C-alpha cells in the first residue's frame, strides 16, 4: 500500500509539472504582449511598458521565465529593483500588476470562499442525491421513483445561473423564507451563522444540479447491485431486507460514488464561476473570470494551475479511498 501511494505521488508530481509547462507555453505564445497589459488596456506609454517588462521578467528567454516561475513556487520571488522592489514570498505564483498584489495572496483570499461554497454544496447534494437515489431504487416504479425522475429532469436541465436567480427571487424576495444575504462573505471563524446564511442559497443552487445527477446515478447503481449474485446469497442467509440494503447493497453500490464525488468536488474547488457570479461571492471562479476579462495573465496562469493541482490531488485521494473501500484494488 505504501509503495502504491508513493508511486502515485510521484506520478502526480510529474503530471503537475507537465501541466504547468503546458499552461506556461500556451500563455507565452498568445498574441498579447503581457508587459503592455500590465498598465491597463489603453496604456500606450512605451516607457512604462518597457519598465514593466523588465520588472516582471518578460524580457528574459522563455525557459528562464518558466524556471523563475518554478523557483518562485519554492523560494519566493522578488520583482523589480531598487526602490520599487516587490517581494512575494514562497509559494509565489507571480505578481498581478493590475491588482497590485502577489497572486498567492489573492488566491489565499479567494480559496476559503470557494472551499466554503464547495464543502456545503457537496454535503447537501450527497445527502439529497444518495437519499433520493436509494429511495427511488428501493421503490422502483412507484410514486417516489416517478417524483425522483421529475426532479432529475429539472435538475439536469436547469442551468445553475437560472436556478440561482429563481431561488433568489422566490425564496428571498417573494416568500421571505430567509433574509436577504446582506453584506459580503463572512469567514466561518468570524461568524459561523452568518457564514452559513450567506452561503445557503449558493449551496442550494449548486447542490440542486449535482443532486439530480447523483440521484440518477445512485438509483441505477443500487438497482444493478441488487441484481448481483452476492445479494441473492445474502438473502439466502436469512438477512432482513434492511440489513441487505444497508450492509451489502450500499457498500458496493456507493463505492463508485466516492470517485465521482471526489472529482466533482475538485471541479468545484477550481471555481464555481456562475454561482459565484450570481451570488457575488469573491471566490476563485470570480477571481479567474475577472482576470480573463482584464488579461491579467499571472492570475490566469495561477488559477489554471491551481485547478489542475486540485484535480490531481483529489484524484490521488479518491484512488486511495477507493482502495480502502474495495479490497480488490489494493495492490500488494
Amino acid at each position, binding site marked *: 500500500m505504501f509503495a502504491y501511494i508513493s508511486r502515485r505521488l510521484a506520478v502526480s508530481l510529474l503530471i503537475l509539472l507537465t501541466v504547468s509547462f503546458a499552461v506556461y507555453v500556451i500563455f507565452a505564445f498568445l498574441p498579447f504582449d503581457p508587459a503592455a497589459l500590465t498598465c491597463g488596456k489603453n496604456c500606450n506609454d512605451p516607457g512604462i511598458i518597457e519598465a514593466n517588462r523588465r520588472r516582471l521578467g518578460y524580457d528574459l528567454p522563455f525557459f528562464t521565465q518558466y524556471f523563475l516561475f518554478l523557483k518562485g513556487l519554492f523560494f519566493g520571488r522578488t520583482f523589480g529593483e531598487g526602490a520599487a522592489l516587490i517581494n512575494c514570498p514562497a509559494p509565489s505564483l507571480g505578481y498581478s500588476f493590475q491588482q497590485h498584489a502577489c497572486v498567492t495572496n489573492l488566491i489565499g483570499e479567494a480559496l476559503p470562499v470557494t472551499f466554503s461554497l464547495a464543502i456545503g454544496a457537496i454535503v447537501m447534494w450527497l445527502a439529497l442525491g444518495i437519499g433520493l437515489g436509494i429511495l427511488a431504487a428501493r421503490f422502483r416504479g412507484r410514486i417516489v421513483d416517478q417524483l425522483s425522475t421529475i426532479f432529475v429532469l429539472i435538475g439536469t436541465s436547469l442551468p445553475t445561473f437560472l436556478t440561482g436567480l429563481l431561488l433568489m427571487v422566490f425564496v428571498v424576495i417573494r416568500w421571505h423564507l430567509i433574509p436577504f444575504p446582506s453584506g459580503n462573505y463572512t469567514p466561518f471563524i468570524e461568524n459561523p451563522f452568518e457564514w452559513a446564511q450567506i452561503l445557503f442559497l449558493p449551496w442550494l443552487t449548486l447542490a440542486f444540479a449535482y443532486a439530480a445527477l447523483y440521484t440518477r446515478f445512485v438509483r441505477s447503481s443500487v438497482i444493478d447491485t441488487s441484481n448481483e449474485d*452476492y445479494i441473492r446469497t445474502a438473502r439466502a442467509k436469512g438477512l432482513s431486507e434492511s440489513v441487505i440494503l444497508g450492509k451489502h447493497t450500499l*457498500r458496493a453500490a456507493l463505492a463508485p460514488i466516492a470517485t465521482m464525488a471526489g472529482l466533482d468536488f475538485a471541479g468545484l474547488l477550481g471555481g464555481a464561476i456562475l454561482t459565484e457570479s450570481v451570488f457575488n461571492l469573491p471566490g476563485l471562479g470570480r477571481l479567474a473570470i475577472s482576470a480573463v476579462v482584464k488579461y491579467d495573465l499571472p492570475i490566469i496562469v495561477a488559477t489554471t494551475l491551481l485547478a489542475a493541482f486540485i484535480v490531481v490531488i483529489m484524484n490521488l485521494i479518491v484512488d486511495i479511498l477507493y482502495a480502502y473501500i474495495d479490497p480488490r484494488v489494493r495492490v500488494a
Partner: protein
Amino acid sequence: MTLLKVENLCVDFPTPDGLVAAVHDTSFEISPGETLAIVGESGSGKTVTNLALMGLIPLRTANVTGSAKFESHDGPVDLLAMNRNDLRKYRGRDMAMIFQDPMSSLHPFYTIGDQIIEAHQIHNKVDIKVSRDRAIELLEMVGIQGAATRIKSFPHQFSGGMRQRVMIAMALVNNPALLIADEPTTALDVTVQAQIMKLLSDLQKELKMAMILITHDMGVVAGAADRVNVMYAGRIVESANVRDLYANPLMPYTQGLLASVPRMDRPHTERLSAIPGQPPSMIALPTGCSFNPRCGRKSEVGASKCESQMPDLTTRGNQHFARCFIGEGA
C-alpha cells in the same frame, strides 16, 4: 419420514407477452439424508422451483401457489403459506442454498470470515467469538487449510473451487436439514468438480442432510442422486430412482437426453443421437404435450392425441412416474 413435501407448486410470471408458467403443478418430496436431483435444460423451471421454496422470488414479479410442508427445527411449517418475514427465520438455518457461480456469489468487499460469521449470527444469539470459532471449524471441515488465518482473506484471493468450498461452509454453518445446490459445479473444472461433489456427499453423510441437486449434467446426477426429477418446460416429465431412470427411461425426452450425452465409455466413432428442434418458448408453449414437436415417438399413440392433450404424470410402478401417453396404464 418426509422432510419436505411439495404439492402443486405453480410459479407464474406475468409478462407483457402474457403469463409465463415457469413452474406448473409440481409435486415431489424428499427425506432426510436423501439426494434429489432435478435435471432439465435452461428454462425448464428447475431453478425457479427451488427459488420459490427459499422465498427468493420477488413477490411483485410472480404468483407462487401450492404448498411445501417442511419439518423445521420448530416443527412442521408450510414454506409457501407463511409471509416472507417469517420465512426468513428458516432460510439459512433449516435450509440453505449454494449457487452456480462461486465467483460472483460472495460479496467482494467483505472477508470470507465476516460473511460466514454473519450467516451464523443472524440465527444464533451468541457472542461473535463463538461464531468465529464455528466459521473456522466449518472452513476446516470443507478442506480449507490454515482456516484460522484464511478467514481474514477476501473472496478474490481464492480460486473458484476454494470459493465454492467457502460457499458450502457458509451454507452449512447452521446445520441445515436441507441443502439446495443449484448447479454447484457447472462453473468449475472437471477435477475441481470431482473434489466438490465428493465433499458434498461426505458432508451429507456426516450431517444426515437432505440435498436437492439442480443440474443439467447427467454424469453428475448418476454419481450423486438417489432420486431424479426430469423437468421440461415447467413440468416434471419423469421421476424415478436414479438406477431405474438410467436403466429404463420411459418418457421420450428423458430417453433423448440420455442418448444425446457424449460418453467416454462408448466408441468415439458412434454418432450422437440428438433431440431435434429447439426447446419451446415459454411464452408460446405448444398445445398438448410440451415435448410433442420434438418427439419421435408420437405415432405410437397417435400424434393427434399428443398434440391436443397434456398427459398426466402417472405411476409406472416401483416409484417410477412418467408424463407420457406411451405405456400408460400398461
